[in-house]
């Protein structure tokens, strides 16, 4: 039954679309992990003046260096989980050919 599911998922390109989205999401989380703390450090002054204008300390708004680092680590963890899930699915769907014919590169059409 798993082979039938695999054949259907690979043949209908659902697997490719889902895996593409998973890898794109993982890359996006990695990029958030890098740009989040960078944004905080470059725009920290602007955020500080906004917080002062609102009459609230930065820490009370959840904006602090510690929070930025924690958010960065959380994004990295999300990236790692998605990459792991994507790799497992890629391995299951595309590392071995779907057909029972002579093995060739994954995703290629069978020889005529």
């Amino acid at each position, binding site marked *: 039954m798993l082979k039938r599911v695999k054949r259907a998922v690979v043949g209908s390109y659902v697997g490719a679309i889902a895996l593409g989205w998973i890898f794109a999401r993982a890359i996006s989380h990695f990029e958030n992990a890098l740009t989040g703390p960078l944004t905080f450090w470059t725009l920290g002054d602007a955020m500080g003046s906004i917080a002062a*204008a609102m009459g609230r300390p930065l820490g009370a708004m959840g904006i602090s260096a510690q929070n930025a680092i924690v958010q960065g680590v959380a994004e990295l963890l999300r990236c790692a989980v998605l990459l792991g899930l994507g790799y497992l699915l890629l391995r299951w769907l595309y590392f071995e050919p779907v057909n029972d014919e002579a093995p060739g*590169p994954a*995703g290629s059409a069978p020889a005529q």
Partner: protein
Amino acid sequence: MKPHLREILAGSHVAAVAIVVLLLWSIVSAGQALLRPTWRAVSFLITAVAIWDVPYIQPGLSFGDRLLLTGWLIGLVHAVATFAAAWLLSRWVYGVGPFRSLGTYQARLNRRSHA
């Protein structure tokens, strides 16, 4: 022989989908980042036309201006970073930039469907 990860990503269309998704997110981020400043510029022009004069321009940056600029910069950074990620992925898998790789990919798909 065990297939290379890069070959599998290219042959299975996964890389192409990922590149398209990243490019779309980059465009959406850039659009969202530019929406408010664009609307402010448009409303300034509409006011100028309505009153037949230059609307009042506050000296220095107000609180709203700083909020607007901060949001714009964050959105722009996100858009550039996402586009850079799409470019890097395309270079690694296909050896060319994202638009060229997608163009070549589309031509290959058309040839396959017409064959």
